[in-house]
């Protein structure tokens, strides 16, 4: 152990110390051997830590200090929509009547929860321009897979059994092709033009009788709006396919353009992005799916419906693809998203997109002199730069990202999308002030200068973090995936 290492909780463990307070044992205790089949009473105890309550709080407080969250500083991570996570959401999700409900209670005893979910569905229907919404998927990728399974069920119900291919642009999120595979489809890639948009000629070439769907993000991962969206929809629809909207970038078009009006048949949303469910260090998220009328019969069951004044879980859906998750989705995240939508209202949501787009364009313009800008046109909520110029000086995009850590920033998304060399993808969001954007841009400009004048300081960054660059090669070659007593 290095003297600067943060102890693992197992290294702080001392036999016979406890950190719990269990309810009183008020029934007669019998011999455990008599209550279990022979050989099924655990002999060796699970080696969990033995620490006091204060030790635990100190441990996790120390860990939290070694972690950068959105509340710690600017987090312009492209395609992730790292906007402010409102605190009222956290309070509401913790109300006893939401946090401490059992999913299998009688419907009559959870009417408040069902009403909230039903109303959230109605709000999301209006926001997306779709006809119905399911809240069951747990995250974006889960929503993608659910949406593709719906499309598969639709084609199969029409006896259209040869639609085995899903088309994705070369700029698509990695989850798109992976979700297609898990839903039983083959993936075909459609190229982007040098303008960064879907190549219509290439699309015409790849669509056909085997096309099940095209998956698209609009604006795309380059932050550009697919201007030919209606033509794209027509090409795919004429071939008998469906088009799927990856809602990861919805923050760019709230109140400006709805997926349903653009011709999309299925859409998933990331409530943990646009609608402020916190990212939680990697989850939980929530990935509702909206569909047009012809896909409603296939939605996962149950759907939350209203019958008279009563809210019900509707299981009577014979063509449903079935369940995609136990119970009704990540309810706690849905409560947060609902609280956010109700805090913003129609005017607020419109302003969200306007300011998100204004912020992105402002940063892009200020940085355009100092970094290569592969697509020089108005962006939407995010934009991409290329570190090509800096690469010639021996400074890679990875180095620039690491150097940003020294100034207290979380770096942008890097090396994605794959069709831009040394890609730097920046998404500021609407909740950041001009001062924050300016400070970040100033540092990016400073780093561009350092790349010219003092490249080592960038190449060897970070200099101020609790650990330096870590040896990822050894981590993968000789994996240590759990604590091993020295």
């Amino acid at each position, binding site marked *: 152990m290095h003297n600067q290492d943060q102890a693992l909780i197992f290294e702080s463990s001392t036999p016979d110390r406890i950190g719990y307070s269990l309810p009183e044992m008020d029934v007669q205790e019998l011999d455990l051997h008599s209550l279990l089949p022979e050989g099924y009473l655990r002999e060796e105890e699970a080696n969990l830590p033995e620490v006091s309550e204060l030790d635990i709080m100190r441990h996790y407080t120390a860990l*939290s200090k070694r*972690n950068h969250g959105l509340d710690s500083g600017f987090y312009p991570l492209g395609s992730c929509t790292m906007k*402010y996570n409102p605190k009222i959401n956290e309070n509401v999700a913790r109300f006893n009547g939401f946090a401490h409900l059992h*999913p299998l209670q009688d419907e009559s005893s959870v009417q408040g929860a069902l009403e909230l979910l039903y109303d959230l569905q109605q709000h999301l229907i209006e926001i997306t321009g779709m006809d119905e919404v399911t809240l069951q998927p747990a995250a974006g990728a889960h929503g993608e897979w659910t949406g593709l399974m719906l499309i598969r069920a639709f084609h199969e119900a029409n006896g259209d059994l040869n639609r085995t291919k899903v088309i994705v642009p070369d700029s698509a999120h990695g989850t798109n092709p992976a979700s297609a595979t898990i839903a039983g489809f083959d993936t075909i890639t459609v190229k982007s033009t040098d303008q960064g948009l879907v190549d219509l000629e290439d699309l015409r070439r790849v669509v056909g009788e085997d096309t099940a769907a095209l998956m698209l993000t609009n604006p795309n991962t380059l932050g550009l709006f697919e201007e030919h969206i209606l033509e794209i929809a027509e090409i795919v629809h004429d071939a008998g396919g469906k088009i799927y909207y990856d809602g990861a970038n919805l923050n760019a078009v709230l109140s400006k353009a709805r997926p349903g009006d653009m011709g999309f048949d299925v859409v998933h949303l990331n409530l943990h992005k646009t609608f402020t469910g916190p990212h939680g260090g990697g989850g939980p998220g929530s990935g509702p799916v909206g569909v047009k009328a012809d896909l409603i019969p296939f939605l996962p069951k149950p759907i939350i419906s209203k019958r008279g004044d009563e809210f019900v879980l509707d299981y009577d859906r014979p063509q449903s693809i079935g369940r995609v998750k136990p119970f009704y989705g990540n*309810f*706690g995240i849905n409560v947060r998203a609902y*609280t956010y939508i109700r805090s*913003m209202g129609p005017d607020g949501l419109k302003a969200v997109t306007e300011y998100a787009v204004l912020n992105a364009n402002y940063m892009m313009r200020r940085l355009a002199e100092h970094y290569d800008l592969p697509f020089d046109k*108005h962006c939407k909520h995010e934009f991409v730069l290329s570190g090509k110029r800096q690469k010639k000086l021996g400074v890679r995009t990875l180095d620039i990202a690491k150097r940003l850590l020294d100034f207290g920033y979380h770096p942008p998304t890097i090396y994605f999308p794959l069709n831009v060399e040394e890609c730097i993808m920046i998404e500021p969001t609407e909740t950041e002030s001009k001062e924050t954007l300016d400070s970040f841009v100033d540092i990016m400009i400073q780093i561009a200068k350092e790349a010219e004048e003092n490249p080592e300081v960038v190449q060897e960054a970070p200099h101020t973090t609790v650990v330096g660059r870590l040896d990822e090669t050894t981590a993968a070659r000789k994996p240590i995936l759990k604590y091993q007593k020295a």
Partner: protein
Amino acid sequence: MKHRYLPMTEQDKKAMLETIGVSSIDELFSDIPEKVRFKGDYNIKAAKSETALMKELFILADRNADLKRNVSFLGAGVYDHYMPVIVDHVISRSEFYTAYTPYQPEISQGELQAIFEFQTMICELTGMDVANSSMYDGGTALAEAAMLSAGHTKRKTILVSSAVHPEYRDVLKTYAKGQYLEVVEVPVKDGITDVEVLKGLVNEDVAAVIVQYPNFFGRIEPLREVEEIIHANKGMFVVSSNPLSLGLLTPPGKFGADIVIGDAQPFGIATAFGGPHCGYFAVTNKLMRKVPGRLVGQTVDDQGRRGFVLTLQAREQHIRREKATSNICSNQALNALAASVAMTALGKKGVREMAAANLQKAHYAKIAFKEAGFEVVYDGHSFNEFVVKLNKPVKEVNQKLLQKGIIGGYDLGRDYTELSNHMLIAVTEQRTKEEIDTLVKELGDLHA
């Protein structure tokens, strides 16, 4: 438009538009074709102030019968357990809950180390070599275990015990369709998987057998016998397990399980109307490079300082794209943190003590029901749940119990036609002797 989440001022806006070289924000949207432009405002509810919205939603929440005000005997995969109060204090630290996935390890050591500790504790409880950083929930973890098994064995049939959670089986069937797998259910005899029938079903196309331990009826499955049957046919042995029970039960790893999955909800995670909870996924070393989801590994920096990174990422969707064997990206990191805090608070002694309290109190309740003249169906060794036969529909009984502040057990007739009027009763360490006695009395009165 002024809003507390939107810092933009008119002055800022003017300066920024000038830098961009446009005269209005609208110009920035000129690339959206007229035909798809949304005009006007969403037809949704108007914004409310913080105070008014809190009040409205508090009243809405208050219309639900929650587990704090009522006494719950409802389990069926989701349980009312002791939640150490420190759990919420830790997961409320915004350094954790407002962070993204730890892709920048230098500023994410806290999250990465917490996950590494989570992985370690799951391995300890399950008796397995490797655990990932979490899955959405137990149900999708089970489906992913089936897909891993099919991919690894190159076989297409999944045998799943009918005593596995019905909703988990439903999720499995949906995933199986995507992967062109066949799911065959193994019947139950006397409340446990029928091992004789299982023997007849296992063949060279069977990728895996999945059983639940303790099973949906609370019974302890004969893991030793099941393991012999499936491994003799070179299929995978998958066990879905309530991790709390493993504080007391011999872990599936000791019985030769290849994959152990489940939900860590019993450890400090609110029932939350069914989610978010926290799936876990544990395997033997030989499957390490096939695990779905994120894994955290230990390494060092250039000065020899210990650090943690996301590792073996070549398995994952963002690298493998269409060749990926799972599409999971977001997981349940914050709930894995909650579970870690609870497992840490319980520790070596507490996890066993809590599991034992579940067993003892449930056993006491089972005896009390028998003494009151009820038939306990599928009677035998069990953990914290058991089945009682009623003479009325469970739904009707539960509505009456609720008037007395009791949330009754699960209506097994929903999933098992032969078990209509049968209630699955869960008794956790939270229930007092008095509460148990009251339930027995109230049910007795309704039974008469």
